């Protein structure tokens, strides 16, 4: 992909993050590059989603301390060990909403993708290698004293223009509004 297209897709991802995280109870500051191998919280949740379309394919990964995701859980948590499963489920839903927003942003630029269902894993002392070819966005957002990281990897065929000029306002119905047929 051209550097300008990578920049445009990165902006779509960051804009989606700024919209979705607060709506899911996760206050975020400005985006910055993730620390390389800094002090990491011991237990982290990783939510993965794959996507593919005629032109673009890749993955979205959301990484955050389990305690941040626990504090954002929108309902009373179970008292017993069940609470971790609830937070896993919620983290998958957050990733789902994030990729849906990214999908809408890409659709406005003529790029269609279909997403997988989310998978969530618990990691301890997770370290991530340097960005590889295909990483469009690798961003870390401060969230209070904590943080949340996004990796968006996307590949397209060589020498193929990916993005069209914006086609106008989004055709997606506003979130929460009821469209009756």
């Amino acid at each position: 992909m051209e550097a300008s297209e990578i920049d445009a897709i990165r902006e779509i991802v960051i804009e989606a993050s700024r919209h979705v995280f607060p709506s899911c109870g996760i206050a975020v500051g400005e985006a910055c590059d993730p620390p390389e191998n800094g002090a990491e919280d011991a237990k982290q949740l990783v939510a993965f989603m794959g996507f593919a379309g005629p032109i673009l394919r890749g993955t979205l990964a959301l990484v955050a301390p389990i305690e941040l995701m626990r504090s954002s859980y929108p309902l009373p948590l179970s008292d017993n060990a069940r609470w971790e499963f609830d937070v896993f489920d919620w983290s998958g839903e957050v990733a789902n909403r994030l990729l849906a927003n990214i999908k809408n942003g890409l659709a406005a630029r003529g790029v269609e993708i279909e997403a997988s269902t989310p998978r969530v894993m618990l990691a301890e002392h997770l370290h991530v290698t340097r960005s590889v070819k295909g990483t469009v966005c690798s961003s870390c957002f401060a969230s209070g004293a904590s943080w949340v990281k996004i990796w968006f990897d996307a590949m397209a065929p060589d020498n193929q223009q990916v993005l069209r000029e914006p086609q106008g306002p989004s055709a997606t119905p506003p979130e929460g509004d009821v469209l009756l047929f």
Partner: protein
Amino acid sequence: MAKKVLIVDDSRTVRQQLGIVLTEAGYEVVEASDGLDGAEKIATSNDLAMVICDVNMPRMNGIEMLTFLKQDPRHANLLVLMLTTEGQPALIARAKAAGARGWIVKPFKPDLLLGTVRKLVGAA
């Protein structure tokens, strides 16, 4: 007897969020974790007032479930609202053609959703 609403979503959190709104309004709630589970629950229930259904789910997605159940004349009039992160016009058109009654892009607004349920099936 309270009117019964089936919630079909692979996210337990979303099922619980919806369930709380509906039960506090007096409706009875049944849950299904994907389209296949939803289809089975519909097949074994003859007193559902409405279904609120996600689209992207494992095993059977929401539009597949809708298409499957509308093949049965017993469910021709069953009201189905799609509640999903998806919002592409082509997908909305597919759901409408398959027999959905409406579409909501997540996250839902409790008052709007409840008002719609009351409008379509009446008070609990």
